């Protein structure tokens, strides 16, 4: 018997968890996201793209940290561009930045509880939610260790724990697999599949095999624009043996990028 979460039974009045129309976001002076159209619903979405494609800037904008320079952005039915009130969307949001900053003297439990408090969770729910989030990322044995004593992979998992502590409807993970060993990556895929059943999870990564294994949908961006969106199997069908790569998905990824570059130079 599967547990039915409240998010599944609640009536949603928004068709997409993330809905961006002609979104433009600046990173410094450079327009890193330039006219991106994106609609994402429930499920695990893998965000792929070469370095400098605007993945991190896009995730920052979706996390409501960076302000869009133009276009429309709606998260969970709430507009978050311009002067809108960001708090309802932020309460339902989980975010792991690429450079995960933390307080070295906090223990894992203190840090996750502090983030839960910042996310305006009811005070009575914080200890249980903290313990649950730490359990889900497999850090229960290190829950009372200070963050400065943790290894890189453990820190990454502590970062994921703080992101999922409020049971977000919209979870944004920027390169969560960095520093994880192969076994932990398998656990993370399992966790992502679990979270993706009732939330919109967007995972930015460079590892095509992670996307194929754990995601229900692939989003490929390049130069700040949406290049391709579809199922992982369809990504494999994009390339043939002539394209570089060791798996069908990798060949499909490089085929899409090459086709796009060829069109751009023409």
């Amino acid at each position, binding site marked *: 018997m599967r547990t039915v979460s409240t998010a599944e039974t609640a009536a949603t009045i928004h068709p997409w968890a993330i809905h961006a129309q002609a979104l433009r976001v600046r990173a410094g002076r450079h327009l890193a996201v330039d006219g991106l159209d994106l609609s994402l619903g429930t499920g695990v979405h893998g965000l792929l793209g070469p370095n400098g494609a605007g993945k991190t800037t896009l995730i920052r904008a979706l996390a409501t940290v960076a302000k869009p320079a133009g276009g429309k952005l709606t998260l969970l039915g709430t507009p978050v561009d311009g*002067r809108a009130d960001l708090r309802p969307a932020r309460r339902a949001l989980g975010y792991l930045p690429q*450079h995960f900053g933390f307080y070295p003297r906090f223990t894992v439990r203190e840090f996750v509880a502090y983030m839960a408090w910042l996310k305006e969770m009811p005070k009575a729910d914080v200890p249980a939610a903290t313990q649950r989030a730490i359990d889900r990322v497999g850090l229960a044995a290190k829950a009372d260790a200070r963050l400065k004593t943790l290894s890189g992979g453990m820190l990454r998992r502590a970062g994921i724990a703080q992101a999922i502590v409020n049971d977000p409807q919209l979870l944004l993970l920027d390169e969560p697999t960095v520093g994880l060993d192969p076994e932990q990556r398998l656990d993370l895929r399992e966790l992502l599949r679990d979270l993706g059943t009732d939330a919109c999870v967007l995972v930015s990564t460079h590892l095509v095999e992670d996307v194929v294994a754990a995601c229900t949908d692939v989003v490929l961006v390049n130069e700040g624009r949406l290049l391709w969106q579809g199922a992982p199997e369809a990504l494999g069908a994009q390339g043939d043996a002539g394209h570089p790569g060791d798996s069908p998905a990798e060949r499909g990824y490089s085929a899409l990028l090459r086709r796009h570059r060829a069109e751009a130079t023409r």
Partner: protein
Amino acid sequence: MTTHPTLGEIDRYAAGEPGLDEATVWSIEVHLEGCADCRARLAGGTTAASRTLITEVAAALDREIAAGPTPRARAFFRTPVRQRWFVAVLLPWVVMAAAVLGTAALLTHSLPHLPSIVLLLAPLAPLPGVAAAWSRRTDPAWELIAGTPSAGLTMLLRRTAVVLVLVIPVLAAFGAVGANRANPALMLLPCLAFTAATLLLGSFVGVARAAIGLMVAWAAAVVAPSLATAELPVLLTPAAAGPWALGTVALAALTLLRAGTFRRLTSF
């Protein structure tokens, strides 16, 4: 609330009869959780065997609790972790402000022909702390915090209040000692006005940049000329207290109008 189960049902429930179907057991249990009367009736209807079982479980639980770790006492220093962290981050800045003010007090004491340097520097005393309270350099988790619903003017004001609580007593102490003691209103009001101005300017260019800009501007426009001419500027004469108060209120009101900008990263 569910209707009370009959006495017969309670007796059968207490006896653990298999004839009772699951749905009935659930509804009886839900009802028992909320109804003390029925719990009392259930206690009266229990068999000797279940009573011995309950006694055994209670004894075993007592043993476990006695053997387990004792609950941690809530000591004085066990304040919420966020406050401990914040005070630890701010202390160096407050100590620096105190050191600068102490030097200023010594200089004022040894150079009586100059205007009070403590008074001249008072408006700037909380600014390094305010800059540190809302800066990417001192807050490693700035990107996480900027994406939470709590981020905003309320959080910045809370942090600013901590800075002021730490700085103002130091300022008052240095202002009160020495031969030419300063007017407390003329120390406190410019101090508050500059804090409000930092927040207002910070909503446009970032709090840390605003603090540095204001410190440089005040030092160049007021402190340096008054040290050169050895005269107290008009801005710090007793007559200026009213305008300072008005200015503080106006700046604070304008800051409230700009509250929305503190929700984004640009103010960090």
